[in-house]
């Protein structure tokens, strides 16, 4: 009997010992084996750059650009339907979310920036010195993307955002005033540019490898920071002209201290080496085709083709648009001329007649596997220069900048066409000169007329790929003078002047109710929208 009890007890003891060794196993099984445990500033930085909200990726084009900014700025065509001016809450919520954390399509620049910041703060002074270049570059990217958020929504959670990364805890961020965010970004970009320009800064092997945007070129980072800063200053120039004028004049009058993304002010410049373009991954397999064709976005937009480009005999037409045509008895018969459907066409007219009108170009846009994400280009910077010079400096210098910008835009679109395998030959010098002298383009007339030319041409340059910028500039300048068909849906008869906050934020952010909510209408204007 005793023996049996003894056996039992030893059996139990064995079991207890067996399970004690489980204790360690228990801790080992805690972490998900598919994920990494080590934070790394360079790797966070790459993730931040790899942003499908910057590239013309399917989701960004299909659900954000083509449904909202491109409709409100008419840089793309759209189905003439009753709800077309109503923003899609879910899709705009996706865009919003992708700014704050990676939720599927964007890189989540805010969360990654906060992670970089936090990791950086935990480093030794020596390590901080080698990693500072990542921090500063990350800041430029953050501020660039932040300005797009402000331009769409106005006040946004900014200075307190990303508390999960900063403190591993939930704390709703207050909505910062849009103007103060602009101020923060403008001065922060200046500091970053200064950092990149300092002789003591050196690019490291790690930075060159991880920088999938500019391959570690400190000069390009400096130009990028300055150019975004110029864009933001010009954007707020009707709201606070004094500040803008002072800062912009300081930049333009000292180009060695403030180098810009201006393509060396050469007309036939090289976008690949001069512009800030986010190249697709080499494994990219997706073209923008579905994004354009699932809706009616691939039709040529009326004002752009019929009013801005055709009368000017614009040399960009063959690379931006395709004549299109009909299939008759299995034979494709192209249309005789380039022409866009009138914006006033009803949806029935659109669906019956679209084959008689032009669509966007297939090599440049629809089937282009190599289409880059456009961050900022030389033509835009030269248009900004032209406006600044026209308003605050010499009109002839403005004309030079304007002509450079227009010519560079032509070069830019032929560059995109080439990337997509297009074979259209670039216009020769006489053709380009004739274009610049065409009455619709030529830099002539009153200051207002000249500014209008700058703005219309810049709008053409932005096109559908930069329709977010086109919409912002349309709201700031009220050019081009677009006509919008009034729709029947109550409350959504015309396009908004800003996006309303997505419910994904307003439902949860305790700072929303009250003053922020009171301003949250689709007709509230962004602070710089004063014209």
């Amino acid at each position, binding site marked *: 009997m005793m023996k049996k009890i003894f056996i039992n007890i030893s059996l139990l003891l064995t079991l207890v010992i067996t399970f004690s060794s489980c204790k360690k196993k228990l801790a080992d099984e805690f972490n998900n084996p598919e994920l990494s445990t080590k934070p790394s500033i360079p790797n966070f930085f790459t993730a931040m750059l790899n942003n499908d909200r910057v590239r013309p990726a399917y989701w960004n084009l299909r659900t954000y650009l083509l449904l909202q900014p491109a409709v409100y700025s008419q840089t793309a065509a759209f189905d003439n339907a009753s709800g077309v001016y109503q923003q899609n809450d879910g899709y705009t919520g996706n865009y919003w979310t992708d700014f704050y954390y990676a939720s599927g399509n964007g890189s989540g620049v805010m969360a990654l920036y906060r992670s970089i910041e936090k990791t950086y703060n935990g480093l030794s002074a020596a390590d901080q010195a080698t990693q500072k270049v990542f921090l500063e570059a990350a800041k430029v990217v953050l501020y660039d993307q932040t300005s797009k958020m402000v331009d769409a929504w106005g006040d946004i959670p900014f200075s307190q955002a990303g508390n999960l990364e900063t403190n591993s805890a939930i704390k709703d961020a207050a909505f910062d005033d849009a103007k103060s965010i602009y101020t923060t970004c403008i001065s922060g970009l200046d500091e970053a540019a200064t950092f990149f320009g300092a002789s003591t800064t050196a690019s490291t092997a790690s930075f060159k490898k991880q920088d999938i945007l500019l391959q570690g070129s400190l000069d390009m980072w400096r130009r990028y920071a300055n150019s975004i800063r110029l864009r933001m200053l010009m954007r707020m120039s009707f709201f606070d002209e004094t500040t803008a004028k002072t800062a912009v004049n300081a930049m333009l009058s000292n180009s060695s201290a403030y180098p810009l993304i201006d393509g060396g002010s050469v007309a036939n410049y090289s976008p690949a080496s001069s512009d800030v373009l986010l190249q697709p991954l080499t494994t990219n397999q997706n073209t923008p085709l579905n994004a354009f064709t699932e809706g009616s976005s691939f039709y040529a937009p009326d004002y752009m083709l019929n009013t801005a480009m055709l009368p000017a005999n614009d040399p960009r037409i063959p690379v931006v648009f395709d004549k299109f045509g009909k299939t008759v008895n299995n034979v494709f018969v192209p249309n005789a001329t380039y022409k866009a459907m009138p914006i006033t066409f009803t949806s029935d007219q659109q669906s019956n007649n679209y084959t008689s009108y032009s669509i966007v170009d297939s090599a440049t846009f629809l089937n282009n596997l190599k289409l880059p994400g456009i961050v900022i280009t030389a033509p835009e910077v030269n248009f900004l220069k032209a406006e600044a010079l026209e308003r605050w400096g010499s009109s002839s210098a403005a004309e030079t900048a304007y002509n450079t910008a227009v010519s560079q835009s032509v070069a830019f679109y032929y560059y995109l066409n080439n990337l997509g395998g297009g074979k259209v030959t670039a216009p020769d010098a006489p053709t380009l000169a004739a274009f610049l002298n065409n009455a619709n383009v030529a830099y002539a007339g009153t200051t207002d007329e000249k500014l209008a030319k700058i703005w219309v041409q810049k709008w053409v340059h932005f096109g559908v790929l930069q329709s977010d910028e086109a919409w912002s500039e349309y709201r700031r300048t009220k050019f081009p003078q677009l006509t919008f068909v009034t729709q029947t849906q109550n409350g959504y008869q015309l396009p908004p002047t800003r996006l309303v906050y997505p419910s994904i934020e307003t439902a949860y*952010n305790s700072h929303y109710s009250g003053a922020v909510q009171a301003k949250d209408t689709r007709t509230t204007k962004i602070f710089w929208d004063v014209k």
Partner: protein
Amino acid sequence: MQKLYEVCKRSLVLLLIILSHSAFAQTTVTGTVTDEVGPLPGVSVTIKGTSTGTQTDVAGKFSLKVKNGDVVKFSLMGYATKEISITSQSVLNVQLAQSSNELTGVVVTSFGIKRQERSLGYSTSTITAKELTEAGNTNFASAMYGKAAGVQISTAPGGASSGVNVQIRGINSVNFNGQPLYVVDGVIIRNEGQYGANGRNNGGFYDDQRIRGNGILDINPQDIESMSILKGASATALYGSDAGFGAIIITTKKGAKGKGPTVDLNYYGSVEQAAFLPQFQNVYGQGYDRATNLAVGANEDGWIADSQSPGGFRPNFRPYAEFGPKMEGQKVRWWDGSIRSYSPQPNNYKDIFRTGYSSSANVSISNQTDNYNYRLSASRLDYNGIQRESGQQKNTFSLNSGVKLSKSVSVDLIANYVNTLTHNRPYQTNQLAASYDGFFGREEDMNLVLQKFQTSQGYAWVPYNQTQRNPSEAFVYNVRPNLYNYFWNTLKNTADENDNRLYTSATLNWDVMKHLKFRGRIGNDFTSHSEEDKQYNQYAVAFNPDNSSTGGYQLSNGIYSIVYGDGLLAYSNNIGKDFTYSASGGFTYRTEHYRDQSSGTSNGLVAENFFSLSNSYGILSTSATRQALIKYGYFGLLNFAYKNYLFLEGTMRQESSSTLPPQNNTYFYPSVNAGFVFTDAFKSSMPSFLSYGKLRASYGVVGNPAPIYKSNVLYAQTSLQSINGSVTSLSLPGSYGNLNLMPEKKYEKEFGLEARLFNDRLGFDVTYYSNRVKNQIIQLQVAPSNGGGSQIVNAGEIGSQGWEVALNATPVISGDFKWQTRLNFAVNHSKLYSLPANVPQLIFSQSEQNAIVVSAKPGEDLGNIYVNPIATDAKGNKLVDGTGLYIIDNSKYVKAGNILPKVSGGIANTFNYKSFSLDVLVDYRLGGQMVSTPQKYALGAGMYQSTLKYRDAAHGGVTYYVNTAGTYVQLPANATAGPTGEKVYHDGVILPGATANGQPNSTIIQAATYYFNTFQWGSDADNQDGAIYNNSYVKLREVTLGYKLPNKLTERLHLYNLRFSVFGRNLLYFYRTLKNLDPETTIGSQWYNQGVDNGSMPATRSFGLSLNASF
């Protein structure tokens, strides 16, 4: 020595007395034991207080030597035990009554510990095999509707392959799946572990559209012997965290003692049809209000001029709304180019589906001898649901065996193998119901869609703007695409799943010595899952764009494994004759592994419809995930009983879980419960009608760890193939972890009273419970600006309290007729008690740009629905704007209901007359609301009968004309022209309400304008009236009419217990508040998804027959 002598002497005297007594009075008694339908084999017939006894044979006969004064006890699982005192009978014909609940006396509790029901201090429910199988349900869980108090069942539509949710006692977890623990023959089995913390079908519109199943579907109802449901914390305390949401303990059938091996045969066959469909209007076809019709290029009525259409006009097939022309059989040109009648198709929604059928056959062989018992069973289920081209075949083999190795050692071996082939799991109608692109006209003929969703060459339908793909078969007009895509996805594309599951257990029972028993058990549950998805090329590859093709192929494999072990050492003894006790100690250990791997083509297939990974247009996509967890615990149990009427039990458990951060991964909790059979304690002073009465009280604590990996703070590493070469990028997951997470703990107290009266003709069981879950683990949704979508936190306290009442009665026994009734109802109230300071409220679901939220603030009930109301003035009048439409106040929320029911339960009646039996089960849920945005969209689109209101004079439309300023001016109803001959309309409506200046609204608007704008998508709509509906119903769930052939007739065929029955399930609603939706169509495993409809699939009604026999 003296003492020994005394003992011997006394024993001898006693022996002599016994012997002499027997010698004088022993006789043989014979008889037959029957139930209401016929003889009962295998009934244990014993003389009470002795080990003497026998069993009835196949014909229910027995013979036993007895003497006067003996009490003969008849007992059989599933029947109420009967005792008869022998006076001088020589024949004892006994009828046993089937018992549903308490009457059997034995309940299987945690870890398979069998307990006398009377000794328990907490509430349990048991459901018998008969109740689970008689109506031919393909799984046991959907057979539980209305059968156990406080147990709420929801079966996702789609039939045999769709998951079933079981919710016990309200909400115990605000985020995670909250399903009970399933234990089969002592082993914890997999239910939904493979889906991880996110569960299944919770993702809505962009999520997986196929309706997924869960693990309990694999348990064959035919193999279940009995089932106990453990509800409260005290009942489940030994299982700990695994059973935080209750436990369902299933015991499968064993070999029964009879005349050698017995073969049982069961067959069930049934047909099912889509039922309880929306009430559509069948008057108007596709079109918008007048202004929009004109804006899209049609005329006022919605006709489009078309010279190729017979009358010069054709319908507009593009609108998602139904305010177009009246359908009066006009000959018009259709979207396929043919000339057809413009006529309503009242059944077109139903016609998307087909008549389904289900067939289930089971054969088993079983036997029991003194040394071994076995039961082998094989089942085959063929299921073809209402979704066309979908189906499931399931083969189940199970072995349940026991071997007695020696007097003190026995071994039980149980093995189940389930092979399931699922072809095209049912597809949600989500993209038809929740998207305007899925809306189709009332004139749409599904027969035509069935012909046209693919071309004669087997490619997808060709839209009007892609005519080059097939000029002769291309659609000639623009349509809304989702319907045709739905047919393509469900009828052409295929998804085949093959699951092989083996779950087994081996148990060693060892009577170590007198009073001391040991039981050790190991078990496993292993599943290999594979899925092959084929997407066909939508058009010939010649029409491919430059960089992609269509079609696709995907292969997925999963290996899911649970290994389980437990050991239990129990010592029991008594102190004196009144006091017994037992002490047990044990451990339990479990590992779970889930591995999934999936590879697929990208950007289409290069060669047409060649399904192989080698045929990918782009770079293959592939993914793999591994999940593993370990849980173990030590537990102890102490029982005391006094005079078999006062019982006390205490338990404790220390458990460890790898899913919690290491510093918090071990925790401890106790429970205590007591039962007091007061009718035995105060026998003399009890009224004679009260045969049994017991009071119960219990208190328990259950800890609960985090779901797997959710509290990790880790980074996703990817190698990007960039222009700089392969570069490492590190990103953050959207749901942020928490390394300080602690287990949540549920504290529950429970009191109960049960009684049987009037010779057991009436019985009831009343339970009150109240619980608090502290440090609730919540995947807290946060504003994205926090830098993440959510964080897992211990946030606040929730709690539920409620009543459960079960009543059973035998109102009539008269000759051959007997009526038994069982009724249960449960009232539950779940509340949020507190939240941390930085969390103002919990939001479970939000829709329509936040205009509808299901949320809770501290002190509020869980499941409250809040909505932006129509704006009102100071007097409470609804405000109407200048266009004649209501103004919505988006700055304010009003409470519009609660998604949880107030009361739920069921009423089951059994009527027996001779060999006939009729079972009728009604279940109900009363109170509570449902959020259904698809119904709002359909209202706005004029789909329902209810939207005929105001559309003409007969439906209350106001008569008016449009003056030159565009204003609508009212006319007398009989007017035929305006003052200057203007056209007269009869579809006006003046919304009751006030304008901004306080005057009553007098603006006339067109009815279509009213519906179209008032119930449009988004927050600028009347969401309160459009999307929130009362959800109460009383449903006739199951009716079974059975006839058992007399054995005399069948004996010659060597058949016994031949029973034939017809049954119907989900027959009708006696009452329901939802008119255009079935209350049970919601899917998703999260509790709040049960109150939010997103358009899943129609519910069904089925009829069938069954045949049972034994050889």
